[in-house]
């Protein structure tokens, strides 16, 4: 994007007079003109509205009004989150067109009040779950590092659009990994904030006790800049927390001296890409170089909490969708309906037992995080799968090696950061988890890691042809 890869750099450029918001937005749309429809990032672009908002942002800066680090910054918004510029579709034929005609979701309103410029609504898996479905009238998102592969989901468009330069950051949502998976597959940074840290009102729900809206951007610093604006309670979301919002940017010291990081490589859970082990060990050395002490740990109840997350997600989403599942099954995409409808195969005691496991898991993780300050694991032990390999009726085979669900089950903040590339040129990632509401600390570890690496700044060069 005209030389600006990060929100932090663009914000500095805006204040130095080196660039205008209008130029940033024009560059974002020029990139979109170049790469769409190859990447399938957008469901809707807000060209007119964004350029008008950028003009206002520039005028305000000129007149001395500075709304903060997001002032004039182009952002993409996952299309399960309401914006006043246009309708929300959840990338589905099923969602009621009248859903939330009330304007911005609270989190979007906060970004807008912070001066951000919304450039469009980005692709998602239908209702934030499943896989792309070529039989439905929506774009197929592709990974800019290899357009034969999937950018991950469900925050697919936001994940793919950042490294391709279509915007400097954006919103995703994470119920079982939907921020961290596309961040991992696309070589960007994404934060699943502590459950309740960011209000989720104005977003189409997937699973009430798991959903969270979070920032996606090039860097942990950019995620901190976004979270600083997004966090805090809102009356429309009773699960949003009124705990004090930390100074996420001030926490980014780059110094990990005295920090104990637990490492669970999760090799017991299955196979991994042959390059994964080396990339993980290289990444861990960077953390040590920043001052951290590493301690081998084993996440408690790993399989059970992963199962509990799955039961919770599918049962809660099945309850939300049941009337439409009964009457409009084939209007759903194959991937979404298989996941959501699968919630009917669990019993009410199964659901409650899953919540008991989650409570026990929270306590055991809390105990673990008294011995260490953080836990790092692979986000996924495999890179992005090919689009052709995605099987809607065997989804877990397509998603092998993912390790994101565990942290949704317990609610802790978790940041995905890129750690390098496979021999095939696909990004790989680690996730950094911390104590509840220690989002600032998690971002600080990610920032310290990124001061010693530049994986998050690499830019793909997608081929200028839509693969057959």
């Amino acid at each position, binding site marked *: 994007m005209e030389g600006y890869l990060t929100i932090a750099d663009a914000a500095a450029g805006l204040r130095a007079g080196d660039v205008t918001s209008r130029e940033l937005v024009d560059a974002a749309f020029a990139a979109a003109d170049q790469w769409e429809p190859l990447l399938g990032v957008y469901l809707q672009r807000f060209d007119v509205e964004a350029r008008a908002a950028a003009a206002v942002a520039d005028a305000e800066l000129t007149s001395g009004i500075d709304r903060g680090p997001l002032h004039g910054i182009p952002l993409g918004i996952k299309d399960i989150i309401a914006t006043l510029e246009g309708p929300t579709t959840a990338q589905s034929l099923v969602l009621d067109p009248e859903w939330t005609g009330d304007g911005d979701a609270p989190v979007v309103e906060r970004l807008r009040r912070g001066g951000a410029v919304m450039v469009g609504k980005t692709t998602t898996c239908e209702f934030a779950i499943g896989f792309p479905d070529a039989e439905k009238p929506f774009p197929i998102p592709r990974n800019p590092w290899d357009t034969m592969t999937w950018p991950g989901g469900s925050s697919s468009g936001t994940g793919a659009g950042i490294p391709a330069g279509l915007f400097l950051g954006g919103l995703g949502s994470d119920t079982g990994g939907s921020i961290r998976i596309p961040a991992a597959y696309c070589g960007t940074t994404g934060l699943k904030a502590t459950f309740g840290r960011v209000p989720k009102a104005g977003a189409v729900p997937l699973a009430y*006790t798991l959903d969270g809206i979070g920032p996606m951007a090039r860097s942990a610093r950019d995620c901190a800049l976004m979270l600083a604006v997004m966090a805090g309670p809102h009356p429309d979301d009773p699960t949003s927390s009124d705990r004090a919002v930390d100074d996420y940017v001030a926490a980014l010291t780059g110094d990990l001296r005295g920090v104990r990081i637990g490492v669970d490589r999760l090799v017991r859970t299955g196979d991994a890409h042959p390059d994964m082990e080396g990339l993980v060990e290289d990444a861990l050395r960077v953390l040590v170089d920043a001052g951290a002490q590493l301690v081998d740990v084993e996440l408690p*109840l790993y*399989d*059970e909490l992963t*199962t*509990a997350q799955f*039961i919770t997600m599918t049962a809660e989403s*099945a309850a939300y969708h*049941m009337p439409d*599942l*009964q009457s409009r*099954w*084939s209007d759903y995409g*194959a991937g979404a*309906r*298989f996941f959501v*409808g*699968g919630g*009917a*195969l*669990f019993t009410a005691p*199964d659901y*409650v*037992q*899953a*919540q*008991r*496991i*989650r*409570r*026990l898991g*929270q306590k055991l993780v809390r105990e673990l995080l008294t011995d260490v300050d953080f836990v790092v694991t692979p986000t996924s032990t495999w890179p992005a799968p090919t689009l052709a390999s995605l099987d809607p*009726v*065997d989804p877990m085979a397509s998603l092998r090696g993912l390790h994101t669900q565990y942290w949704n089950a317990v609610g802790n903040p978790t940041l995905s950061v890129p750690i390098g590339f496979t021999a095939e040129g696909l990004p790989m990632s680690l996730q950094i988890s911390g104590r509840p509401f220690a989002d600032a600390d998690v971002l600080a570890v990610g920032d310290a890691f990124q001061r010693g690496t530049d994986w998050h700044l690499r830019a793909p060069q997608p081929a200028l042809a839509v693969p057959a």
Partner: protein
Amino acid sequence: MSTPSPSPSSQEAVQALLGIAGITVHADEEAAMVAAFAAQRTAVAALYAVPAVRYELPALTWSAIP
């Protein structure tokens, strides 16, 4: 004394649960659900087998005030 009913097959169970929910799925989807059902039940059974969860409260919140 009644004789316990034999465990239903995965196919019978899946069909019954989908029927109770009122959901009609495609044949390939039902076949996939049936194929995965036994492993899914094993994973669910493991949740009841965790000794430390015996007296744990669920992670649910409830208030008399809506």
